[in-house]
């Protein structure tokens, strides 16, 4: 018996040792990959120097390349079938071989991006959204290519962003001027406005609301006075994408220094955390009250889809995209096909307590980025190729197809889709319009689907969002904001939990002080101390950059 036990222990030990040896082997092999990555980074630097020295001549002619270059690209939305017509067109044109690495949707997407970046086969072009901490680690590990040199030589992307908003590239660049992340999609200054069912207003003899109180009264009437005249109480005032605070924007903008996620800054330059401010207490309280009264669709507290509920004719007010004003907007087409007599119209933002009606301002920085990674064999050619794809006419062709074949213009010069980028035919015929969506999108005349009215709507929304924009903080490098990196996960989890619970009615707004105390115990006070310091430094840095790029 004892003998057996001893053998058992010896075997277990042998096993351990052999396994440790195996791990050791792994360790050394990984160490070697580590060193290759650092040489790759050095290589990147040398090519960059080369790029600068040859900035005048030596531009790669991407249309006349004899060697076929494999290109793997991570994509989330947009067209995600392989070997589409557009893909083949690009492959032929630039003599490349494209393979799409499709990310598994929004809920598991960031996991997959993390996994891809930690693997041996990183796509040549990586796309991601809001992963600032990870981004810094990638840069430190030498996984991304600095493209600032290439941007001087191939200027389609740079010119576009400098034309739209000079701050965009400031936010994308590092302190030393290098650029590892290329802005993937930057929204219009504001791209949303308040939408209302005009036919319901008419049915109930109501006027379009201009103040928050009037809006709430309209919502009451829409809920209780049977606006669709079917004799059933099956309508709601406000609807919106579920589990998305933006659905409540009219109440958020009604108060100063209120927000659901971002840091706010007052006129004296003092930085505060929006979700912990008095203004937020007020808007959440308002919304919770309306929700409890049943003026808001019950689904809004769950991760549900607005478009479907809208097609059912379930609600009469929503805060949504200006682009809905375009005749080809899919949710609207869907809505009108089931509700032919109805009418949604965009109206001006209603006036709240602070007296400054504001639309939701978008950030100057991109919400999604892409980068050329160290796995690219010829980063310069890859950048040059991609940059060429971003020129105005090439972008229009890739996004909307060819005039006469995929779209045409009517007598008012308005874009009419023959095969729309969102249509079923695009999938079933494997055309591939909208390929690489979110990896560079033009919001200028390149977005040909905007009608003049929609463009005007965008402009108005943009103008009416500057007051709000001036009071919101935009960080350049959230990951260097150390206390935030450390505590943000806990703080944001608690923030989301509490605010949604109040709206859903499972917690009381009376617990507000408790909530703020909890945030502080999770580190918010430290965060704010650092935030105020960082903000001052950031302003100085930005002014310097903007002066240099004038």
């Amino acid at each position, binding site marked *: 018996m004892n*003998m057996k036990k001893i053998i058992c222990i010896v075997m277990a030990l042998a*096993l*351990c040792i052999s*396994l*440790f040896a*195996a*791990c050791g082997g792994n*360790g050394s092999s*990984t*160490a070697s*990959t*580590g*060193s290759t*990555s*650092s040489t790759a980074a050095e290589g990147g630097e040398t090519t960059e120097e080369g790029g600068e020295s040859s900035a005048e001549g030596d531009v790669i002619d991407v249309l006349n390349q004899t060697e076929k270059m494999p290109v793997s690209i991570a994509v989330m939305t947009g067209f995600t079938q392989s070997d589409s017509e557009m893909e083949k067109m690009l492959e032929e044109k630039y003599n490349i071989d494209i393979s799409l690495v499709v990310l598994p949707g929004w809920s598991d997407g*960031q*996991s997959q991006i*993390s*996994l891809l*970046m*930690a693997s041996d086969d990183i796509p040549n072009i990586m796309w991601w959204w809001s992963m600032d*901490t*990870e981004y810094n*680690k*990638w840069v*430190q*590990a*030498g*996984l991304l290519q600095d493209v600032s040199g290439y941007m001087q030589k191939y200027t389609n992307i740079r010119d576009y962003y400098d034309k739209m908003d000079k701050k965009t590239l400031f936010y994308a660049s590092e302190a030393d001027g290098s650029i590892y992340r290329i802005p993937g999609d930057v929204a219009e200054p504001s791209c949303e406005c308040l939408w209302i069912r005009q036919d319901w207003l008419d049915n109930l003899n109501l006027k379009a609301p201009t103040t928050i109180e009037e809006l709430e009264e309209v919502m009451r009437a829409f809920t209780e006075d049977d606006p669709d005249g079917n004799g059933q109480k099956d309508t709601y005032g406000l609807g919106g994408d579920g*589990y998305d605070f933006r659905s409540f924007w009219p109440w958020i903008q009604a108060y100063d220094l209120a927000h659901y996620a971002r840091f706010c800054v007052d006129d004296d330059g003092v930085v505060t955390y929006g979700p912990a401010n008095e203004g937020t207490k007020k808007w959440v309280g308002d919304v919770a009250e309306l929700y409890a009264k049943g003026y808001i669709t*019950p*689904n809004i*507290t*769950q*991760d549900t889809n607005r478009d479907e509920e809208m097609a059912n004719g379930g609600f009469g007010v929503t805060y949504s995209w200006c682009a809905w004003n375009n005749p080809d907007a899919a949710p609207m087409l869907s809505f009108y096909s089931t509700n032919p007599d109805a009418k949604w119209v965009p109206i001006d933002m209603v006036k709240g307590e602070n007296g400054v009606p504001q639309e939701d301002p978008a950030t100057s920085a991109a919400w999604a980025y892409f980068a050329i990674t160290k796995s690219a064999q010829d980063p310069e050619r890859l950048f040059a190729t991609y940059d060429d794809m971003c020129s105005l006419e090439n972008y229009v062709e890739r996004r909307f197809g060819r005039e006469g074949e995929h779209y045409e213009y009517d007598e008012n010069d308005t874009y009419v889709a023959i095969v729309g980028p969102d249509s079923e035919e695009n999938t079933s015929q494997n055309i591939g319009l909208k390929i690489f969506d979110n990896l560079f999108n033009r919001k200028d005349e390149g977005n040909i689907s905007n009608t003049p009215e929609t463009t005007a709507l965008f402009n108005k929304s943009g103008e009416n969002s500057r007051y709000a924009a001036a009071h919101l903080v935009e960080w350049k490098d959230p990951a260097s904001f150390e206390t935030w990196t450390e505590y943000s*996960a*806990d703080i944001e*989890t608690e923030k*989301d*939990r509490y605010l*949604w*619970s109040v709206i*859903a009615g*499972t917690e009381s707004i009376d617990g507000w002080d408790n909530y703020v105390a909890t945030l502080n*115990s*999770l580190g918010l006070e430290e965060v704010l101390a650092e935030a105020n310091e960082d903000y001052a430094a950031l302003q100085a840095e930005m002014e310097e950059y903007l002066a240099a790029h004038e």
Partner: protein
Amino acid sequence: MAAAVKPASELNAWERFKKDVVRDKWLYLLLLPGMAFMLIFRYIPIFGNVIAFMEYNPYDMAGSTWVGFDQFIKLFQKPAFMKVFGNTLYISILKMVCGFPIPIILALMMNEMRNMKFKKASQTLLYLPHFISWVVMAGLIMSMLDPTTGLVTAILKFFTGKDLQVLTDKNLFVPMLIITDIYKGMGWGTIIYFAALSGVDPQLYEAAEIDGARKWKQLLHITLPSITPTIVIMLILNCNNIVNAGFDQIFMLYSALVYDVADIIDTYVYRIGIQKADYSFSTAAGMFKSVIALVMILIVNTVAKKTGNEGIW
């Protein structure tokens, strides 16, 4: 039994060992792939847990450093983790307390059925949910609990008069987890007890009938004692699950609205580890969980043996 082939006694231990190994070479050959599998896919990951003692950088492994117990210290200092640990225990203990007796009762009730066709049919239906994935179950649950069209929502409204949104209500989410877990597992749970019940000697019941013992008495004095060993073993195996609150189920159903009550160690490990690429920290969390499970099963097994029951080894 090994003695059956034991040759002359003058052979010493080592020679006997060699001879036995040669004799059973084909058995070792059969065993080889399975053990290799266990080594590679079960033991290497167990030793892979060493990264919990490192600051592991997945993007640049050369940048990884040894940090001793730092990750564990960080873990215990994090209020979020303690919350998650509490949730795990709370959900799994509730699941066990509510879910454990049900299969026993069902098996005993079914055992009294004389109509074999009915019994077979109901067994077939009761086992079914066990074979359905949590992905599909989640789809069914979401459909039943849909705030506007869900059938269960309508039933709840009928009884409470309120529009209850179970999936986002933190007071209702955990009960929902418990009930759906029981729903999925209770039928399958009975099968083990059927196995035990079929082993009871029918003569015992005949003897009891002759003695005039009623059904109730028979249950107490014959049936229950004969399935007690099985109950104890199932209890021990269940204790191993005290830190497994059901990853698949929760992962498919939860949202930030109910993180407060539904976030468990496994979902936390996934979010911090895979999503945020903090491999070391989340491995520490996972390892802590495994160690608790191991300790639990050792304690319960020892207690079971001390109290005169059979353990699992």
